[in-house]
């Protein structure tokens, strides 16, 4: 009996939730009435589509290699100079090695910065100081009247190794790549 009662309850609940059939007792007199409430549910606007808008600001990426100083030492026994070469160095103008990424999207992003040399310059190593830049969703706090805030992050490129091509003048020795991914996707990788 308990089982039957339970089954009936379940059936009743299902019947009501299906939203199609509900029957009250019959109306048994002229002037008799039956009444049923009407319900409304507000459906929010559909999810706003993601709009990607990322600005990348590049420094000139122009570096200068200065070879190491050559020190000559006279050898009286051989009557010749002995040369020793110091370590060369890379330099650049202020900001020339800077990569700045600005996120104007309505989604949090991660910018991955990669740098690599190529061709006959593979002896030179390009290093990205911070190769993963986190960029906040620019729509945080935004409404139709209030603007959100663009998110900006920067990193720098540094080179090491000797530039052996003494004729190099703004020779292309490699490239820097910025890759954009959704922050939630990037964090899963």
């Amino acid at each position, binding site marked *: 009996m308990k089982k039957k009662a339970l089954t009936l309850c379940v059936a009743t609940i299902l019947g*009501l939730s*299906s*939203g*199609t*059939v*509900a*029957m*009250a007792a*019959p*109306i*048994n*007199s*002229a*002037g*008799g*009435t*039956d*009444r*049923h*409430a*009407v*319900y*409304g*549910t*507000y*459906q*929010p*606007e*559909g999810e*706003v*589509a*993601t*709009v990607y*808008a990322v600005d990348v600001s590049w420094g000139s990426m122009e570096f200068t290699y200065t070879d190491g100083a050559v020190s000559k030492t006279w050898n009286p026994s051989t009557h010749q100079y002995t040369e020793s070469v110091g370590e060369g160095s890379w330099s650049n103008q202020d900001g020339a090695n800077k990569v700045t990424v600005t996120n*104007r*999207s*309505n989604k949090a992003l991660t910018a991955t910065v990669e740098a690599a040399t190529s061709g006959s310059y593979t002896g030179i190593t390009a290093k990205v100081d911070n190769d993963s830049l986190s960029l906040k969703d*620019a*729509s945080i706090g*935004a*409404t*139709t*009247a*209030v*603007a*959100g*805030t*663009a998110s900006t992050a920067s990193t720098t490129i540094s080179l090491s190794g000797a530039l052996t091509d003494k004729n190099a003048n703004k020779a292309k020795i490699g490239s820097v790549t910025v890759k954009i991914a959704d922050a939630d996707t990037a964090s899963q990788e």
Partner: protein
Amino acid sequence: MMKKIIAATLALTLSMSMGNLVYAVEDKSADIKATYQAGKENTDTVYSVDVKWGSLEYTYSSGVTKSWDPTTLKYKEASGTSSWTCQEGADQITVTNNSNADITASLAYDKTDSNITGTFTNSKIGLKSAEGTNVGESPSETTTLSLEGALSDTKAEKKEIGNVTVTISDYVGTSSNYKWDGNGDISWGFLKTTLTDGVYTVEKECTADNYSASIFYIYNKVNSQEKYVIKDGTIKAEGTYSLQKVNSGNGSYGVSLPSTMALTGKTIRLTVDLRNENNPTLTVKVI
């Protein structure tokens, strides 16, 4: 009975034993005649009307489309067409008449949210009597409720926004072409259409026991020469009377309802049946 049989036997024995005295007896008979008269049929109206409700659960969509503008870093909104939707059948109300009388189901939408109105595909459902139908095949009709207006409560979730009421009454017809011109103390009016083509009805409250003259005559308002009068000229009680179509004059103008009907405070229902041109009838019923 036994005693009579014994007496008859004894008489027969006596007559036979007397030998010379014999009487001749002639048989006689009388017919017994019977006439059937149908008893008065009293049929009370029993109302039984089922209302099957859809869930009446609706969803409102504003139609506004929101998008991100990366230049201004603001959201943009574009207005579209708002709409009310519901699951299949959720907006339907089905009325089934299991009564032995024609009925009208009147549907009304009462607002709880003043911005939202409800309309029915048919707000007055007329259903014939279930008499003569099989169980499960009673007259039935479905109407659909549509909503209009904006739901301003953006948090609303299955919020009551109104109510639907179904009220049952005897069938409420519309005015027909046939006027029922009352005289005496009963005002004239139009016969109302019924659910059967060619059959019309009218109900009037009586304030006197009898209406001695000119209670009514019936005519076609399109062709006022087409009149119907009681064929035998007299209404004696409740019942069905033959009508006669006359094309001029008022015919037996002055039909009365007798005092024996004791009509004070009662309502008379006149049902005019013009389906059979050769035998139009009027049924008088006190209800």
